[in-house]
């Protein structure tokens, strides 16, 4: 075996092992979120409306009893909603808040959560209050699954709304699909090199930024 062939083999093997994907999404969520303001101008929490993709919706509703075929009422979905909310606790509801640069804890969701089922899509609705209402110049909310089993994306129309807000400026970092060119450029970066120029995390995060006077 020539030395070059050997090097080639080594390179190939390295590539195969050093380049595994870190992501494995199996659930897609399209989000609408609302920031809830108190009359005194503090933000009390965030209300999420998470629509699951049709495959996961079919999976999650499998075997659930309903009066009408392929239709589920809020009541019929209640046990499932309970399980959803309870198991989300372990993952901090995938919601991470930072007020003026300080991590701000959220508490358990209010008991008024519910699931609805429309056009074969399951939507989870729940309100996540801050431990203490937040009043800050800048509030950053990030919604993601660190393990990327769940792929979160803001809805295209009115992804975020401010409910009862004073004059605050809203900025939503919409996630976007990686273009083919970007994918190709990314794939050209050697697997053992840290990719510094194309930070995926920053560009594709779901961020809500609120600036208040």
């Amino acid at each position, binding site marked *: 075996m020539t030395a070059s062939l050997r090097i080639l083999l080594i390179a190939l093997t390295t590539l195969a092992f050093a380049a595994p994907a870190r992501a494995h999404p199996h659930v897609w969520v399209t989000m609408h979120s609302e920031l809830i303001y108190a009359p005194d101008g503090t933000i009390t929490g965030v209300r999420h409306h998470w629509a699951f993709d049709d495959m996961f919706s079919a999976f999650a509703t499998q075997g659930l009893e309903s009066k009408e075929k392929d239709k589920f009422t809020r009541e019929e979905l209640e046990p499932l909603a309970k399980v959803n909310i309870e198991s989300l606790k372990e993952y901090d509801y995938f919601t991470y808040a930072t007020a003026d640069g300080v991590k701000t804890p959220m508490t358990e969701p209010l008991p008024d959560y519910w699931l609805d089922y429309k056009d074969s899509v399951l939507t989870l609705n729940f309100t996540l209050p801050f431990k203490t209402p937040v009043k800050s110049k800048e509030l950053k909310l990030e919604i993601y699954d660190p*393990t990327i089993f769940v792929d979160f994306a803001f809805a295209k129309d009115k992804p975020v709304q401010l409910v009862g807000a004073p004059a605050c400026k809203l900025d939503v970092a919409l996630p976007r699909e990686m273009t083919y060119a970007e994918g190709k450029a990314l794939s050209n970066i050697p697997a053992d090199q840290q990719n510094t120029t194309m930070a995926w995390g920053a560009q594709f995060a779901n961020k809500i930024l609120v600036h208040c006077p």
Partner: protein
Amino acid sequence: MTSGRYSTLAQGALFILGMLLVLGVIDAALAQPFGMTRGAPPPEIGGFTGWIFAKQAEFYRMMSGTIRAAKADGSAAYTLMGISFLYGIFHAAGPGHGKAVISSYLVANNETWRRGVVLSFASALLQAVVAIAIVGIAAVLLNATAKTMGNAVRVIEIVSYAMIVLIGLRLLWVKGRAFVSLLRGEKHDHHAHDHHHDHGHAHDHDHGHDDHHDEDEAAAWGHAHAPEPSELAGRDWWKRGLSAIVAVGLRPCSGAIIVLVFALAQGLFWIGAASTFVMGLGTAITVSIIATLAVVARGLAGRLAKAKPGAGMLLLRGFETAAALLIVAFGALLLTGYMVSERLVGI
């Protein structure tokens, strides 16, 4: 180039390769991070990885539309098969302990690439069968809920991960002992290992049909390495491999289960089942390629061992021991829940 210099160079290269291999496998298996730090930002995904990620997500998402289309138009089923195949290929290149365990197993056990391919295909096939069986029995026959299926998967998971630990421990016992005794500089003369000697011949003979690396290595070793007699019983490789096939293939892919249930909801369970098999085919191809690369690397180490009996053999045994250790680590981390292979959220 003198053979001495050559092997020193090659030895260095192989050492680096070995390290990369080990790190790469850990990286692959820890794809879903350890314990998962609360509030940690999403891991940065770039390079080849980002591309694989984007591709598999793309194919997976295409499946739902294609299954719906197949309801009205039968020809969409063919498109679905194509998508499933590509999804399988890309999905297996992503995180998952399967390919890591199979590769480590092949390296530690000194199996040939052909056996690696057989193991890869058999475990992928089993994975497809298990997914179809779970959905077929639980959802189709019993109309069970997703939660019930999730529980069934969890039980299977525990069995599968425990098996991985056992396979790893057994290999570690065999390979680790050989490595340690070599490290201590023990002489492997015929006097001390007489009873192993005969088995050794059977072993070499059997392997010789498939792979010349083993002959080289055996010559360097002086027919004196001392795996357990059962390890050496030539034709038993299939039995030996069966445990690896079951350990890896028992745990079905969450994606396949979701696709199957979705197809069932559309009244197209059998199309979902066919898609699952085709996904398995794609998975098997990717895993086979990676497993083959691992075997090739192991073969290079074997050649080196021949060129430089002392240090080379130490490296080789070290390589095998590290691979066995990795299997134990995978199994233990998966079993204790520190490493999450896949999970079904909120069910």
